[in-house]
């Protein structure tokens, strides 16, 4: 049922066009109105090899609404194959094409039958948000594009995490996860970003393991991969930020993949020594502040709300006020996510609320006593509430309109330090 969407923090399923766009060599074909691509095209580094200005689109008009748009779609796909230099073409449906009942699936299949790399995903905006759309597109790729393989590559591990382009740090985070995995002696396989793409995608079925670093997003995908290719998976809900969480992460992946415990410990020791060398040098900055209380609130998706809470409590020793999750996470996952917020050092439990109503979230923040100036991590929407609560504020998730992120990452040991740099660069602008 329609509900008030006050301060939107997600887009619709068709925004999964950005998931396709992030697989080098793949391009979405939108069976959609003329404006869908432009409205959904924002995000971190959209002006790539392909952008929404390049995506083929049926630009559905009144004529197609009345008479159907299948002929148009067929034409557009056929000519996309001639004009666009890509290796995989993913037809995505929209609200309009689904309501008028066009059979885009059959059209994609007819091209596939002729040996053309054309697949299809149903992504009407009314069916779900962009988090779900991302899963549906990956599901479609698994079902329609990936082929079974008898060959398994020893040590190859597929890594899956946050949404491409929507998550401002998506690529930096992914690259950092790759590096961590590599240190364990495994071979990371990811499909997004520079020099990955189609070849890596084709290797997905050959992997020995799947690793999902996310509270819930992508779980259906790795289960599908397990069913189709028999690949065992590790679902690790916490995106590791800083020493404490990264060391736990390395241990968990090491245990799951059978890496020698001593080897893992050595890697951790080396990193932690370096990490705490820096922390030691800047501990005064963190401790001797006159302008920040111990309390913080994160207003973000499941991934960041959980990961940042873990880091700020378990690494930095702050104390959680109420945390908010704004990605409309499916009901079936919520209990497990809440439990993750209860596993913090010293038996600390963070209260968490799933809410998509920014007005109510901000009212709660305004009515919370943070016992000093709070820290608020969120999106551009939190700028004003941070101002009215005299909070320190950092935008870390979509929408972030006033911050440029190219390839930085908050993942791992280095990512934790980077986050501290960003937070305290805000804190240092004030004195009391």
């Amino acid at each position, binding site marked *: *049922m*329609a*509900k*008030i*969407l*006050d*301060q*939107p923090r*997600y*887009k*619709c*399923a068709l925004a999964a066009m950005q998931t396709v766009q992030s697989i080098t060599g793949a*391009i979405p074909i*939108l069976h959609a*109105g*003329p*404006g*869908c*691509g*432009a*409205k*959904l*095209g*924002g995000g971190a580094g959209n*002006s790539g*090899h*392909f*952008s*929404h*200005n*390049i995506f*083929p*689109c049926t*630009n*559905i*008009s*009144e004529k197609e*609404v009345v008479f159907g748009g299948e002929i148009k779609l067929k*034409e*557009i796909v056929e000519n*996309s194959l*001639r*004009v*666009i*230099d890509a290796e995989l073409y993913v037809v995505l449906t929209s*609200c*309009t094409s689904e*309501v008028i009942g066009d059979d885009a699936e059959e059209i994609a299949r007819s091209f596939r039958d002729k040996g053309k790399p054309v697949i299809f995903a149903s992504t*009407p*905006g*009314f069916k779900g948000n*962009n988090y779900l759309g991302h899963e549906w597109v990956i599901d479609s790729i698994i079902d329609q594009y990936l082929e079974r393989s008898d060959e398994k590559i020893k040590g190859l591990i597929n890594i899956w995490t946050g949404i491409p382009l929507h998550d401002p740090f998506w690529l930096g985070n992914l690259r950092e996860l790759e590096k961590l995995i590599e240190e364990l002696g495994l071979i990371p396989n990811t499909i997004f970003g520079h020099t990955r793409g189609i070849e890596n995608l084709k290797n997905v079925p050959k992997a020995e393991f799947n690793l999902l670093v996310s509270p819930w997003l992508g779980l259906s995908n790795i289960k599908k991969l397990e069913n189709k290719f028999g690949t065992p998976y590790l679902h690790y809900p916490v995106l590791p930020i800083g020493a404490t969480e990264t060391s736990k992460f390395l241990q968990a992946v090491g245990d799951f993949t059978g890496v020698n415990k001593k080897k893992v410990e050595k890697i951790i020791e080396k990193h932690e020594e370096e990490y705490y060398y820096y922390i030691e040098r800047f501990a005064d900055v963190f401790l001797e502040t006159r302008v920040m209380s111990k309390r913080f609130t994160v207003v973000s998706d499941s991934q960041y709300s959980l990961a940042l809470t873990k880091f700020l409590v378990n690494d930095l020793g702050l104390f959680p006020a109420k945390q908010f999750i704004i990605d409309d996470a499916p009901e079936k996952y919520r209990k497990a996510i809440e439990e993750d917020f209860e596993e913090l050092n010293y038996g600390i439990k963070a209260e968490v609320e799933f809410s*998509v109503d920014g*007005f109510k979230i901000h009212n709660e923040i305004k009515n919370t006593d943070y016992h000093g100036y709070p820290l608020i991590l969120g999106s*551009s*929407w939190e*700028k004003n509430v941070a101002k009215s609560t005299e909070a320190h504020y950092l935008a870390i998730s979509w*929408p972030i*309109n*006033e911050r440029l992120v190219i390839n930085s990452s908050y993942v791992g040991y280095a990512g934790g330090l980077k986050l501290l740099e960003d937070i305290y660069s805000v804190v240092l602008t004030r004195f009391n």
Partner: protein
Amino acid sequence: MAIDFKISSVGTRENRLGSITGYSGDLHDIIHQSRCGTLKNKERCFSQSSTCNAMCALGQLSGIRDIAIINHAPSGCTAVASGINVNNNQLATKRGISNNTVFLGTDMDENDTVFGATGSLKEIILETYNRYKPKAILIGTSCVSGIIGEDVDSVVEEVKKEIPESIPVAAVHCEGFRSRIWATGFDASDHVVLSSIVKPPKKKTNKINFKNFYESERKQIIEIFSNFGVEPVFFYQNSTIEELEQLSEALATVSICGVLGSYLGNGLEQKYGVPFVKTINPLGIAGFETWLRGIGSAIGKEKEVEAYIEREREIYIPKIEEVKKELRGLKAVLGMGPGYTYEVSRVLQELGMEVVWAASWHYDKIHDNEELPAPLKYLEENSKDNFKVSVADQQNFEILNIINHYKPDIYFSRHPGTTVWAIKQGAAALCVNDEYMIFGYKGTLDFAYTVLDTIKNRSFEKNLASRVKLPYTEWWYKQDNSTFLTSEGK
């Protein structure tokens, strides 16, 4: 055909004005066909994602201060909300005012497509009113609400009974599939303002209605107009409901862009007799002077205008003549909305450059005064070349093909995400983003130097072009850019 203020939904530019999005030919041909009524739209059997009229309609209105826009649509259509909010804040802060406008959505889901959502819409409107006490509530329609037949007009009538009469509530009909021409959205926003906000005049003021995007030359224009004893009122960005209510009391209406302002300007003229200055735009020398004289004659200040022109010419014309020497003969390709393509083409010729291809994202053969738009009339009479013209709703593949074929010294574009592609092919490119970029003598001078700077330092495009793979096949670059235009559309 006079504008009908009684209807709720404005006709599309295609239906109302016979505007088109598909054409390939040249300047003389398109004007000739416009005049004799033979100009027909051509469809494409390959097309790329463009833009929809809802973005223009709701984007324009959301600049008005302290109102609420409710987009009756699934979540993706409201994805622009935060960009609007941030822009509003930045632009209000710049002026030292506040703008508390909110842009919300109804997050329509699958159930709504089956059972409808007018009940929820009504609740959301009332909840929005209670939360923010906005000075107006405007409800945007979407592809989904349109196709399932939501009767938003009836919801508006119901809601009106429950909130104070002084708060305008209106539907903005801007379903994305209605029109390939996003400028239809400008008309939809103007239609709402004309029919639901503007009040009949009580008195005449010394104001000039100034339709623009982001009032970036506000200070300069206030200064210029003070020479004529009049004051500009800029809108919609940063305007108040009260200012809009009084648009009927102004001495005249001007617009920085013919496409942006034609519906409102003609509407105010037809309904309230406020003269609409329909000259070419104030870009370049001829544009600025013609526009100022148009204003002068509309408000009876011809002498003051001539005195101003004379003073300013003395300062700037020698400087512009100086820089023109270096621009002479440079070849340019343009891709912009028609409110700029044909104006900037004129300025480039004025600066001694050669326009080899001008693409406009749509084409109006007439505006709502039923006449050929002024910039085309000007080019018909003054253009030294019969340059190539195409009409393409931001069809990037055609533009890159044109750039590849004509190898211009520079490409000019205006819309988000359209400039970068030219540099990937090694062409210098300049984004004429700010609508005031070529405004007046000083703007023309600044623009000329920016063009020179762009052409003289090619490092960025050279570095990038040598390293990127283009999105199109070699086959495509060997085709004529109009290959996918079918013989005749609707």
